[in-house]
Every structure is written in C-alpha cells, then in structure tokens.
C-alpha cells in the first residue's frame, strides 16, 4: 500500500496506463491513508463511496484506451469549491450542511479529465487566515514536526490541501489563493503550490472571498505533477466574466525547459525585519542554483512592496464584506430565528461567522462606508495600481522573479497572538502577486535546522505560467528536496 502512496501523479498515470496498478487500488490506498492520518484533521468530509465509484469508471476508461489527463488520480478538494451532492461549507458554521446542486467549473474540469474525488479538505473559514486555525472544523495539522514534536500549523488558508498532499492522504489537491493561500501552506508543508494568473482558472462555483483577487490552483508533491494538474484545471469559462481566453501554454513540457538564457530578477524589497536568517540564506542559495543553470540574475526594485499588505487589508475585506452579504439565513445555510427580518439577519450572521470573518466584514464595511470610501478604498486601489506598475516595469527587463515564499517556517498551533496584524505578515511575499494578478509558484527548497521545510517563490508575467514551471523545475532539481514529514501515511517508504 505504501508503494502506491509513494508514486507521484506522473508515475501513477504511467502505472495505470500499463495496468500494473488499478485506479480502484490507488484510490483504496488513499482512502486508507486519509483514515490513518485522520489526526491531522485535514479532511472535513471523506467521500469514499463516490471515490471508489469514480475510480471504477476510470478503470473502465483505461481499459478501453480512453484515459484522460488525470485518469484515476485521487484528488482532494478544498472545501471552498462547490461539489454537487457533497457538503461544501467554506469551513464556516453559516454553511454547515450546505449541499450544492451544482459543481464548480474547476472541479468539473478535474473530473472530466478522469480525476477521482477523495473528499473535501479543511481550510480557514471563508479562506480568511494563514494558519488554518479559523476553520469551524478546528485547525488542520502540519505533518511536519520539529524536534520538540509540537503540532505545527500547515499554513492557510488551503492548509488542509497542503497537509493532505504532504501526508500522502491525497495525491493532489485544489487550493485557492487570495493573498497567498496556496503558496504559503504549500511552503509550510514542503509541497508545490501554484497561484495562476488571475483569470486562468474559472471562479465559478468557488465560494467567493475577494473576487478581484481569488484564484484557484493546484497543490502537489512535485513540479511535474503540478503542471499536469494545472493543465486540467484551467479553462475559459463563460460563467466567469473575468475568465481569460488567452490559450494555456504547454506547461508539462515547460517543467524540463531549463532556465538557460532567462533573466531572473531578485527584488531587493523582499526583505523584512524579523525574517528568518535561514530564509535569507536559502534565497541566496536559490539565486546561485539558477545562475549555475544558466540564468542571468538581475537585482530589481519593486518600490511599493511594503504597501501591498496594508492595501490588501483594505481591498480584500471590502470585497469580502460585499460577497458575504449573501449569507443572510434566507436562501441557504444556517438561520437563527428571530421576530423581525433584521433581527434574524443579525442573529444568524453573529452565530454563523467566526471572529476573524466578523472582523474582516466589519473592516470592509467601515472602509466602504460613507465618508471613508475615498480615504480607504480608493486610496488602496490607487496603491494597487502603483504595485502593478512596479511589476510591469520590472517585467520589461526580466522573465521571472525569485523571492522567498514565506518569512518563516511553520509555527506552532495555537500560538498566542494579541495583534491580528501579526498573522497578516505571513503573506508579505505572496500578496503583491494577487494585487497585480500575476502567477506565482512556491517550491520546497530546503529545511531549517529544526527540520522544517522552507520554500522559494517564483513570480512571473501574466499568462506566462510556463516560465514559472521552467524556473521551478530547475530549483526542484537543484534542491533535490526529498525529505519526508514525520506524520505521513504509509510510513517513510
């Protein structure tokens, strides 16, 4: 069984096509792995019956030579995606028990490519968080541990996704990224996570957080698997008006494309006080690897970088306060009964939303309210323009940028935080790409002295995911990251 779990997606596809393994066997192994690692709390719903049924259908298609790109591969789905007939809660009490009668475009694409749904994965409530601790289902746990064996957060908001892929209880997983929610947990868990260009993956059927920033993407064990899954996820979708018609590049081929002749920028502003010295060292190591592989490294400047986080914490809550107005206890989700309509709304939303979500709705409501709209919301949108302009200028000179993925490695679950701003700083290196709509990928590149994974981030031009995979492929090769977490299904094979 652990042999099955040790296969990468690309290897599993080959084995399935050769019929040396079956999709039902592979899926059975993953369902077992999910149960064996249930203590990590990364699944909020396991859809075993559906998974075995889908796997059986995959085996039939393989038998008749009609295998899709992801045929027979077991996939976990962040609970932010609506899945037909399967609870979809955004890990919020206000959506507990919500069973959509429709399927998100991204998951439809995955199933159309032959993917097998294992279940729904834990995340921060409405994707608002960077530690997976705001989930109504409780924190998901990182399978990695330091020497002190303390439970660590998997990052967030796609914490369950990264945790499950690292623990080998999902071969691949979907995530969403509004300010770093794919890349930061991917880095914390030693996995590969891509946030595609805004518009690359359809947002239709994904519970909305901040619509101008949200993007779905894959979290996988390695770069080649990531390119494979991304190829199946992306599509133009008329049901999402911001979905792009720009054709997808050959991402699978790009992974082995190398970086010879590429110009890669190193933004000097991607340094902050309190940043782990090991993170800085790894960043420098990454630059050396790329140079050795034939890239030209160029120091560049993105002068408005430090303003990305405060601008984000105006724009994202503003959009969230508007998007989350729909949870009113009338059409779906929980309702707390009261005598008047307004009292019912207020009681329902007070009981249904957790503290972090309430706080962000309040911030958003405030910055959009009369008298403050210009000073906060329009100001932030102006700063957003300057941040995007910074990238536009730099990308006239370079093909990609190399940065750290996170300022630190994973931290302990339940870390006491008095100031909510402290948690926001996790996303300091990831947020700018969301504001500018650019693609970014996190690749595991080394371990701290405590034995915890650290990632590097590659940022690219809009709709140029191929360059990211080229750079990520080289980093992966050079780093030779083959470390495994302590709490993994199937032991350490």
């Amino acid at each position, binding site marked *: 069984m652990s042999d099955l779990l040790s296969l990468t997606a690309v290897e599993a596809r080959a084995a399935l096509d050769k019929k040396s393994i079956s999709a039902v066997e592979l899926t059975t192994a993953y369902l077992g792995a999910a149960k064996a690692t249930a203590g990590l709390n990364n699944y909020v719903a396991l859809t075993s019956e559906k998974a075995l049924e889908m796997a059986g259908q995959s085996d039939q298609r393989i038998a008749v030579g009609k295998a899709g790109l992801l045929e027979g591969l077991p996939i976990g789905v962040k609970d932010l995606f609506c899945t037909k007939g399967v609870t979809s809660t955004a890990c919020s009490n206000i959506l507990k028990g919500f069973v959509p009668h429709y399927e998100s475009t991204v998951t439809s694409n995955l199933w159309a490519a032959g993917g097998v749904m294992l279940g729904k994965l834990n995340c921060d409530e409405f994707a608002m968080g960077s530690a997976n601790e705001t989930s109504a289902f409780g924190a998901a746990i990182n399978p990695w541990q330091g020497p002190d064996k303390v439970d660590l957060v998997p990052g967030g908001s796609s914490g369950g996704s990264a945790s499950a892929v690292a623990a080998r209880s999902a071969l691949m997983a979907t995530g969403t990224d509004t300010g770093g929610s794919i890349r930061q947990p991917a880095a914390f868990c030693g996995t590969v996570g891509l946030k595609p260009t805004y518009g690359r993956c359809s947002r239709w059927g994904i519970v909305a957080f901040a619509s101008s920033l949200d993007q779905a993407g894959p979290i996988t064990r390695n770069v080649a698997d990531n390119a494979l899954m991304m190829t199946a996820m992306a599509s133009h979708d008329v049901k999402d008006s911001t979905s792009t018609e720009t054709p997808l590049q050959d991402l699978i081929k790009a992974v082995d494309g190398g970086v010879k002749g590429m110009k890669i920028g190193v933004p000097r502003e991607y340094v902050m006080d309190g940043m782990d010295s090991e993170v800085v060292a790894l960043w420098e190591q990454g630059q050396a690897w790329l140079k050795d592989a034939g890239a030209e490294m160029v120091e560049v400047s993105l002068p408005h970088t430090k*303003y990305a986080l*405060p601008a984000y914490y105006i724009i994202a809550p503003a959009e969230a306060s508007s998007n989350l107005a729909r949870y009113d206890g009338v059409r779906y989700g929980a309702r707390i009964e009261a005598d008047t309509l307004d009292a019912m709304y207020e009681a329902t939303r007070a009981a249904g939303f957790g503290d972090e979500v309430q*706080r962000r709705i309040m911030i958003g409501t405030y910055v959009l309210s009369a008298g403050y709209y210009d000073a906060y919301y329009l*100001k932030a949108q*102006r700063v*957003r323009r300057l941040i*995007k302009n910074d990238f536009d200028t730099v990308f006239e000179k370079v093909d990609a940028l190399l940065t750290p993925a996170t300022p630190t490695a994973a931290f302990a679950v339940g870390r006491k935080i008095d100031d909510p701003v402290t948690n926001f700083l996790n996303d300091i290196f990831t947020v700018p790409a969301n504001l500018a709509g650019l693609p970014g990928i996190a690749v595991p590149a080394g371990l701290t002295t405590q034995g915890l994974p650290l990632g590097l981030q590659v940022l690219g031009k809009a709709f140029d995911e191929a360059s990211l995979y080229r750079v990520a492929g080289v980093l992966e090769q050079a780093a030779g990251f083959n470390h495994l977490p302590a709490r993994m299904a199937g032991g350490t094979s």
Partner: protein
Amino acid sequence: MLNVKSPVNFSTNSKKHSDMSVDKTTVAKIARLARIDVPEERLEPLAAELNGILNWIAELDEVNTDNVTPLASVTGHALPMRDDVVNDGNCVDDVLANAPDSTSGFFVVPKVVE
C-alpha cells in the same frame, strides 16, 4: 514587524487616516450596517482590534497617489457581453433545496409587513 508610521505627505482631498480611529459607538454602527449582532461587551474590545488594523493600514498615507487612477480589476478589458437569451431556469426545487424555510416555491422570512 512592520512599523506603524505616522502619516506624512498626505495629499488627497480626504481625511487623514490618523484622524479616523473608531470608538464604541462607531463599532456599533458598523455592526449594524454589516447586520452582525455584536453584544455590548464585545464593542470595546472590537474597537481596539479594528483600531490596531486601521492604524497599521494608515501606512498607506505615506504614498503619494495624486493623479493615480484606482485599479479595480487587473484584467484590463471590458466585461464580455452575451446574447440576451434565457440560458438557465426552471429549477425552483434546486434553488430552494438548501433554504432554511420555504413553502409553495417561495423562501419564507419573518413577517416584514403588518
């Protein structure tokens, strides 16, 4: 940690962020606008939490944004139009399937008109 800096060079036509810390009354007003029932004893702590965030956001005051057009969408193109034809519908049961309360094809809410 990022430093919270006092505003300099603030040159737009509106209020300074530093003047805009929220008090208990404002929090109650925001909660009302957001339709969230915040108990009286939570107003004061919430004001402190929101001020922590708002003070930090005030860092944006340093940035000169004169003559900068706000960026609402990165796609840079107009929203696509589609033919004005019905492409969905006749799915009342699907729409009502998750309603907390419904009857005769309608959502049911507390009485709003006496």
